[in-house]
Structures are given as C-alpha cells and as structure tokens.
C-alpha cells in the first residue's frame, strides 16, 4: 500500500519536557489512521509538527513526498487541518469564514463559490450560512471548523480530537462525516482519547503515551498483543475503599493487571468467569460493594491497559 506520509524519528522537546519522543510510523493513502492516547500523550504536538506549525527538535517526516522541515509550503498545500480548538472568526458568518479560508488556500471565483456551497451542504449549515458564527451552537461551530479543513480537498486531513466537548448528536454527525470523507478517498489522521471513536473509525491505530508510540497496527493486530485475555470491569460504590481492593486484586492469582478509574476497576485476566467469584468475595471482605460487572472481549482499552498498566481515561 502506498504511504502518503512517512514519519521518521520525530522528536519535540520544550526545554526539559519531552513532548514527543522518537516517533516513527507511516500513513497509508486512503486509510483512517488514529492516534489514540490520553490527554497530554503528545497527539496534538505530533499533528502540529506534521502540519508544519511546530518545527521538530529532531527527525523529519515527508508528506506527499515533501519534507515537513525543508518544504513546508509544499506540505501545506497537500494537507488540511481541523484543530482541536475552534479556529474561526466569530464575527464572520459561516459563509464568510469559508470564503476567507478558501481564498487562503488559493480558491477563487466560481470554484470557490461552488466549493463553499458544497461544504455548507456537507456540514448541514446551508440554510444558516449567513448567520454569524458566534450565534451558533457548539456543535454547529465544530462542523464549520471541520468544513474549513475540507474546502481545498486536501489529500491528507488532520483531525485533532474534533469531537471534544460536543453533544452526542453532533458527535455522531462528525464521525459519520469522517467515514464519508474516507469513502470519497480522503486520507485521515485522526487523534482521539476516546477508544470507541478509534475503534469505529480506524483502519489502523497508533497508541501513544507519554510522547512515545507504544503500539501500532490494525485493531485485530493490537488486540492480539493482549492475547486471549478478557477484561472484567467492576462498577463499585463511590465511597468504597477502591484502592485497597485494587491492590488486593493485583496480587491475586489469575489476574494479570488491575487498574482503577473513577468508580470502575478494569481487570485483565485469562478467564473472567473463573476469577469472578473470588473477586466478589475479596470485594466483600474489603467492604467494596460491586454494583455491576461487565465482561469484555479484548479491545483497544484493554490493549492500552495491557501496555501501560493504566486505563486510557487516566
């Protein structure tokens, strides 16, 4: 498969802080590649370097055959960027925003008008195109934010956590539009800390933590790293001594890993059915009330837990 982007030993340091540490991976033409990791893992810094906003401390990447450090202008013409934060002019209407950004990408005249109309239809705001952005809901703003990134039909679209802080309906619409774009042939680099989004969208996933790419592959390839392990998820009471239970579980036979997040405990085990009874007995001994239990097949969450010893939500 052709690679549209080759990332090679990319490093970004801010003084003593190592935001991205020696990351290398390829993005294949036509795929949705997700960078999955918790907040602060280095996803945005990686996208910022690839989009030529930040200069790497070391390493390089080529996009469409152009180096991000040596030919940034050529790279900028190939990529589209949907930043995590809304990057729009609130006092301009959606149409004015799209016209301005389209112009900045070299679109003019009838081509620009046609493309703006097309994108407005695509993001479902054709009937509200002339309202100022500041009058829009959060979800509508997000859609305009995405629309700006699509205007010039980039070969590679960077989407940096585009669903953060929006309602479920808008989130659904955005995920569907990402899939539609991909079907139309656009390659997408998607960053998220929502395991469900990565699972739903991605052809391949890179798991990033503390600035390091710790795993990469298709979902099937990644879950195989966990082996045939199950994930047992316990939902417990808010005031219960959860940490005591987690420590006890970590030393129990048959449990590979146990980690807590809020009021849930994730346990990776070879057989959830076999350890369920001893776990409940131990919880009762410690005084933790188990409210519900889920047994899950291996997923990206369990992969992350397996690789880092922490839940993705931490």
């Amino acid at each position, binding site marked *: 498969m052709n690679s549209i982007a080759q990332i090679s030993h990319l490093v970004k340091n801010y003084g003593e802080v190592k935001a991205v540490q020696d990351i290398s991976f390829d993005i294949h033409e036509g795929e949705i590649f997700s960078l999955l990791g918790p907040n602060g893992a280095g996803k945005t810094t990686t996208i910022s370097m690839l989009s030529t*906003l930040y200069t790497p401390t070391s390493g390089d990447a080529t996009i469409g055959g152009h180096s991000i450090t040596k030919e940034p202008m050529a790279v900028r013409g190939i990529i589209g960027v949907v930043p995590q*934060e809304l*990057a*729009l*002019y609130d006092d*301009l209407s959606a149409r004015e925003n799209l016209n301005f950004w389209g112009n*900045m990408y070299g679109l003019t005249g009838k081509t620009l008008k046609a493309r703006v109309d097309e994108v407005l239809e695509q993001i479902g705001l054709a009937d509200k195109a002339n309202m100022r952005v500041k009058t829009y809901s959060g979800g509508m703003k997000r859609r305009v934010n995405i629309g700006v990134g699509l205007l010039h039909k980039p070969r590679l679209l960077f989407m940096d956590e585009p669903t953060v802080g929006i309602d479920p309906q808008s989130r659904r619409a955005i995920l569907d539009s990402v899939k539609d774009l991909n079907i139309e042939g656009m390659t997408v680099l998607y960053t998220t800390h929502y395991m469900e989004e990565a699972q739903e969208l991605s052809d391949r996933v890179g798991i990033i933590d503390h600035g390091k790419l710790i795993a990469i592959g298709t979902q099937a390839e990644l879950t195989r790293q966990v082996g045939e392990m199950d994930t047992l998820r316990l939902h417990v009471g808010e005031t219960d001594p959860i940490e005591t239970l987690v420590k006890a579980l970590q030393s129990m036979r048959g449990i590979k890993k146990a980690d807590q997040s809020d009021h849930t405990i994730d346990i990776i085990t070879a057989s959830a059915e076999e350890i369920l009874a001893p776990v409940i007995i131990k919880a009762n001994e410690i005084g933790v009330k188990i409210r519900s239990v889920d047994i899950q097949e291996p997923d990206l969450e369990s992969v992350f837990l397996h690789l880092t010893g922490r839940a993705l939500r931490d």
Partner: protein
Amino acid sequence: MKKIFLIGFKDLKLMFRDKAALILMLVAPFALTIGLGLATGQMNMGSDSGISDIPLIIVNQDGGQLGDALVNVFESDELEGLVAPTLMDDYAAAQKEVDEDNTAAVLLIPAGFSDSIIPQEGQAYTNEPIDLVLYTNPLAPTSVSIIRSIVDSFLSQVETAKTGGTVIIGQMVTSGLIAPEQAQAAGEAYGLSQTGGQDSSIAIKSLTGEGEESEVNALAILAPGMALMFLMYTVSNGGRSLLVERNHGTLARLAVSPSRIGEVLAGKMFGIFLTGVAQMAILIVASSLLYKLHWGDPLGMAALILAAVIGATGWGMLLCAIANTPGQVSSIGSALMLIFGILGGSFFSLSYLPDWAQWVAHISPNAWGMDGFTTLALGGDITNLGKPILGLLVMGAVLFGISTLLINRRGIVRA
C-alpha cells in the same frame, strides 16, 4: 501579496463589526474634540490656556487720533491684567517676535489710518479706510481671538460714530447750529464719544507668523490631535488582534495554510493600517462636514494620514510583539495612547516644551503628525511635509522590523 490583502481586509471587516471598538475609534475622538472645544470656548490649545497678560506688540505708525485711541484702549484699566501691550516702532522686528513665539500678535496701525476714517480739513472723504493689520501667532489662537475681538469692538464703535456723525453734523451745519468750519471738530468730538456694537466695514487684515494671509482655526489643530491620539487606540487594538488570533487558534490555522510567516504578519500589519486609514478618513470627512473644518491641502493631508498610520501601525505591531496577552496589549496600548497624546501635542502645543522634550516627543507618531497637520492648517502643502512624512515612514519601517524579529524569536506565529 494577495494573501496580505485578504488578511488585511478581513481584519478591517472584523474591526468594523466590533461595536465597542467603533465607539472608541470614532465616537470618542468626536466627543473629546467637542468637549474640549466647549470647555475652552474657541477651541483652546497650546500653552495658551491662561487668559491673562496676553502679550501684544502695537506698532502705531498712524499717530492720529484713532490710532492713539486704539492704543489707549489696550492700555486702559479695563484691560489691565488681560492684555500686556508693548509699543514698538519697527514692524519687522515686532513680526520677528511673533515668529519666535515671544508674543501672541502684532497690531499694526498703518500710517494714515485715522485720516482714512476722519477726513482732515480740506480733504475729500474717500470712504476707503486703511485696514489695521493683525499679525498673529498660530500657536496662540485663543489669545489672538481675544485681541481680535477687542479690535473688532473698537472698530465697531468707530464705524457707528462715523455713520451717525456724518448725519448729525450735516444736519447741524444745515440748520445753522454750527458753522461749516466747526464741523470737523464737532465730528471728531462726537466720534470719539460714541460707542456701538455693530460690525465694522473697517477691516482687520489677519496675517500668520509666516506672513501669509490665513484664517487660523484652532479646531483644525485640535481635531487632528484627537484623531491621532485615538489612532493609537486603533493600532494597539489591531496589534492586540494578533494575540487574540493566537488564543483563538486562527493564527495557527493561518500558519498551516500555504502562506509564509511574513505574509501573515504583513497581512496583520496591513489590517491595522487599513483600519487606521479608515478611522482617520472618517474622522476627517465627518469633521469637515460637521465643523466646516478646512484641513488644508488635500494631497498633503492624504499623504500625511498614510504616513501617520504607517508610523502608528509600527507601534501597534511592537505592542503585540512585546506583550504576552491581549489584555497586556490593551493596558499598555491605553497608557501609550495617553502618553503619546500628551507628549505628541494633542492637548497642548509642543512649542511650549523645552527643546529636549520636543525631541523626545518625536518618538510618538502624534508629534510628527501634529507637525504636519499644523503645517497644513497654516496653509502649507505636500511640499512642506517632507520632514514629518519621512519621520513617520522611518518610524513605521524600523518598528515593523523590530516587531517581526521579536515575533519570530518568541514563536508567536510558529513554534
């Protein structure tokens, strides 16, 4: 180049959609101009804030009764404390005193002034009075207007007396109450005893310090002073917009579009420039219509506005380059607006500052701008504006260069 225009016009549009900014850009200068005008009567300015002991040189070449009477008016007890008249013989030397800003005006009473109004015995009445000449200091318009009003009042009395006296003395001669040879003496006595309030047909010829005839309107200097001061608000607000764009993510978005960093910065600067030009143009057109203000040579004014905005824009960019947040730009910008307003001559004439202070004042675009607008108000044209325009252009270029270096070094656009 196209992207520079795109960014610039986008910023112009955004600025004119910001109601709060519009109030400070356009309404505030008008309000202050009107307020200062009302507070000072005839648009007070310069160090001419006090209305006591107005220095005046009188050159009385007439030596006749009316000339002496006019001198007596200025030396009268009623005007003591208000006007401090000095008599001189040499008109040229007196003019030099005005040119050197040592006095508010020179009043020249030309030879033959009295005779042109009160015909001497055996002379025909010509009805062609000789004009008084008031050579004025453009930097002291209030003092000048007070002196002018005193002279006007005197001339009105003379005119009234002349008209009334002609009729009355003529009737007295016709009726045999006085002999024809007594008519002149009676007329003079009558004329000097009369007072009146009507406008005079006997004129004052007004000359400015350079000897060119002009009508000095203090508003023509006060209004640009306010416009220049609030131009500093506009440019600091424009500089602030760069940091606002950084916080809102649009600057990063611009940086990842196929644009060079220089284009983005030049576009932002162009936006500040356009907004400043629009503000100045609106203020000038509106004040011309509302106040009937004559700003002087249009070509010179246009060139001066462009140069002033370029100089001020440099300061706007520098503010953005040194500040960390939009709030800091606003705070520093407001302080700078007032400091430059005071230092640059928006409230009083720079000529009353010591030389070193005048030199320091020219770090502000206001001072250069005021130099230019004063020149235009005094009848100068674009050929007289070389120094202020050059000063402003150099200021803009130097500040833009420094700002660009600082912005790049600090990674405000790209890290």
